[in-house]
């Protein structure tokens, strides 16, 4: 027996398989879930501190509540708009066939690869009324309310999530249902409203959770945008956490944010599932008129215009900035270089660990659906997605260090742990979804043909889910690369590229350098994404 064979036989032993699963579960609980929620224990251990330093300080309390209220209002409005404009776009992507569909498909994902700090800056100079020294003749300069500006900003990066989760569900809904409705005399709109939409609930929940959580936890972009329009007293919960110094206040805000987010999302999940979209009432004539001719075309056109003017142009508006203003001489570019190295190092390590620890967990969850443990893990995996990253970062720091400031390599290590916590779910969800879509008979047949479980995975399952694994990796990598809030919550000394941009804007008001840094970051992110896409395409072509 060769060494490889022996290794294969060894890892195929049921006991070894179970041990590996155990290790992965322990990793998940110890490094992802517990640190994420650790801050909640602070309420029990240090309640007196919170009492004296926060609750009895009316000014502090009002500041916190205003910020939290802002955050939730913004998240709710953003999610609602995303649903309204996301649905027609999902329809276009899934049900329509046209030339240029692939391009549209790519365009929708584009904001995802841009670090939010860059997005925030870009959107602010496009929409916002900026200080005099930040003149950009091409900017619209129409939005003066920071509230509105943040909404516009959050739509940009939550929109792709909504469209993606809605189209994923739409793809699974058999179009025959709609056609059946039509053969029974329902106009297109009636059929969609009474048949397809009610079947949408699951997708709607995922979409709402993703968008809401993303908006609730966004820090970097919001800080950058607010700094750009030079607004000092407007805060969302994450930006408040970002600026607070006292540990009890930080803990209190984080706890409230986490609890509210969890409660609200549970409520949303229940409400959407129970929600009764009325299908007994029908309006044959108006619905018929709206089903054909001008109305659907207008709807499609609006969707595309929204994508272009609300999502895409503000995202990349920063490119115009370098042509319309002049460089400052004091910029320290070596720091930017260092921050890039840091960012890529962190994102790279995080992605590798996500892959190594995420795939086994995903396989375990996907293949043991009916049991309670995998089922529980599946729900738990979503928790870090819902917890605002800045609260997550703070909680994690509290868990590992007790809240003392950290620096140097240890700080980088902690930042990596924080990034793992919120990227890990992305990997697990992606792979779980992919594995569940693959008919288990492939692997089973392979086993009856003599393949050990590990061989079955390598030769049969892996080639089929390769694309999803890669997609998960890209998502984890770009999310880590673009994260600001969690990084800053863990340590302000770890200079990542988005942090560097935020600092340039907020502390040094060096907008030109910030814009340039944004552009460089965007270009590098895209080059990387395209390279990965290219690799996957080519592999697909070969197989």
């Amino acid at each position, binding site marked *: 027996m060769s060494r490889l*064979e022996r290794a294969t036989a060894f890892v*195929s032993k049921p006991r070894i398989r179970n041990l590996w699963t155990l290790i992965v579960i322990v990793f998940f609980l110890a490094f992802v879930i517990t640190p994420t929620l650790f801050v909640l224990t602070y309420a029990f251990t240090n309640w007196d501190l919170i009492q004296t330093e926060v609750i009895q300080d009316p000014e502090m309390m009002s500041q916190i509540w205003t910020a939290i209220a802002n955050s939730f209002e913004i998240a709710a409005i953003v999610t609602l708009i995303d649903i309204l404009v996301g649905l027609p776009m999902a329809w276009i992507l899934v049900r329509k066939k046209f030339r240029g569909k692939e391009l549209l498909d790519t365009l929708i994902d584009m904001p995802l690869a841009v670090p939010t700090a860059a997005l925030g800056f870009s959107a602010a100079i496009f929409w916002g009324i900026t200080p005099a020294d930040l003149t950009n003749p091409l900017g619209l300069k129409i939005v003066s309310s920071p509230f509105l500006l943040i909404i516009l900003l959050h739509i940009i990066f939550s929109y792709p999530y909504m469209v993606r989760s809605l189209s994923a569900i739409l793809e699974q809904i058999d179009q025959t249902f709609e056609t059946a409705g039509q053969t029974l005399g329902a106009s297109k709109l009636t059929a969609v409203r009474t048949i397809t939409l009610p079947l949408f609930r699951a997708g709607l929940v995922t979409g709402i959770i993703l968008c809401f959580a993303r908006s609730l936890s966004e820090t970097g972009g919001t800080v950058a945008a607010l700094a750009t329009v030079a607004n000092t007293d407007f805060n969302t919960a994450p930006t408040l956490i970002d600026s607070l110094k006292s540990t009890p206040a930080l803990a209190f805000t984080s706890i409230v944010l986490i609890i509210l987010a969890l409660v609200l999302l549970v409520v949303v999940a229940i409400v959407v599932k129970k929600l009764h979209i009325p299908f007994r009432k029908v309006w044959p004539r108006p619905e018929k008129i709206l089903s054909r001719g001008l109305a659907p075309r207008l709807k499609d056109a609006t969707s595309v215009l929204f994508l272009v003017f609300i999502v895409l142009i503000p995202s990349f508006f920063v490119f115009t900035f370098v042509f319309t203003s002049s460089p400052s001489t004091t910029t320290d570019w070596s720091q930017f270089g260092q921050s890039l190295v840091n960012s890529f190092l962190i994102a790279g390590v995080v992605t590798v660990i996500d892959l190594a620890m995420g795939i086994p967990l995903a396989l375990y969850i996907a293949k043991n659906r009916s049991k309670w443990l995998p089922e529980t893990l599946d729900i738990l995996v979503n928790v870090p997605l819902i917890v605002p990253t800045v609260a997550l970062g703070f909680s994690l720091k509290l868990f590992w260090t007790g809240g003392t400031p950290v620096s140097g390599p240890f700080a980088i290590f902690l930042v990596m742990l924080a990034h793992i916590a919120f990227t890990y779910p992305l990997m697990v969800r992606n792979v779980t979804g992919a594995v569940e879509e693959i*008919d288990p*008979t*492939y692997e*089973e*047949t*392979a*086993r*009856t*043909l*003599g*393949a*050990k479980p590990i*061989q079955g995975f390598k*030769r*049969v399952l892996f*080639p*089929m889910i390769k694309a999803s694994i890669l997609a998960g990796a890209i998502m984890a990598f770009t999310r880590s690369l673009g994260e600001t809030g969690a990084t800053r919550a863990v340590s302000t000394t770890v200079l990542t590229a988005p942090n560097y941009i935020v600092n340039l804007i907020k502390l040094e008001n060096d907008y030109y350098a910030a814009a340039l840094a944004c552009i460089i970051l965007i270009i590098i992110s895209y080059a990387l994404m395209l390279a990965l896409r290219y690799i996957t395409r080519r592999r697909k072509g070969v*197989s």
Partner: protein
Amino acid sequence: MRNGEYLCLLGPTGAGKTTILRIISGLTIPDQGNVIFDGISMNKIEPEDRRAVMLSQSYALFPQLTVADNILFGPDIRQYDQKVKQRTLAEMLDLVRLTHRPDAYPSELSGGMMQRTALARALASGASVLLLDEPLRALDARLRISLRHELRSLAKSMGITTIHVTHDQDEALVMADRIAVIREGRVVQVGTPGDVFDNPASPFVANFVGQSNFFIGTVEEKSESTSVRGELGHVVMARPCDHKLGEKVVVGVKVGNTEVHKEGEGYFDGTVERILFEGRNIFLDVDVSDVGRFSAKIPSWRLGRLAVGDKVKIKWSADKAIVFSMPLGGLEKELRVE
């Protein structure tokens, strides 16, 4: 099961046929009981070491591999010698008539070709037991009929013990050495196709394997044959039975053994309700007032004189009809095929 036997597991959807295959292959672990191959218990043996290959309904051909690579999957895993592999491949391609398409991907093949590739892949892995889960279901009706014999003779020629799951009684009759009829997780009857068709163990089997007509009555007389009297006084003849005189029983007779005549004697007088031409056979419904509907399947060349509305007599020969005990839950429940 005997070595090299071709067994069909026949039953309606949800009867537990596929579960049996999964238990044999080791993919599902039974709550209780043993699976024994050649006198050795398989309970602790992993699926990959059982040499029992499963061929699923959808064939599960690996989409990223060519026909040749699919066939070589088993030999590759078992790390056969290169020469042996090449020889196996050539043999298999020849056996399933795919020598012209070794480099095609599964998605480029027709249904029949996919089925043959899957079969070749199973045979090439050196299986000693072949587990076929509705291997013909995904194919067109006509193609299904022409592939029945081919599939059976392939398995037979390789001397492989085969278990074939199907819901199609014609398929089972034509292909099996023995048939096991399964219903609600239990084996109702095991026997040769002739046995199962001619000597069904219950009204369900009688109706599931080729349709039957049923008549409820009490045993009136027992001699060389049994006579059974219905509530309205009709008397029918059937094979000898062990039931007591006066016991309530069900008489079942295959529609193919039910005779319909215009003249002569009959057990019932009825009116032809419907005549359906089915090719080789004519399917006839005769309404007997107050008793119900009787159906008959008559070779079509014997038809000609019958038309809808004709008054006819229904009859069968006593040795074609079987007496069953009255089923506990009633006849209708017993006959349910879903």
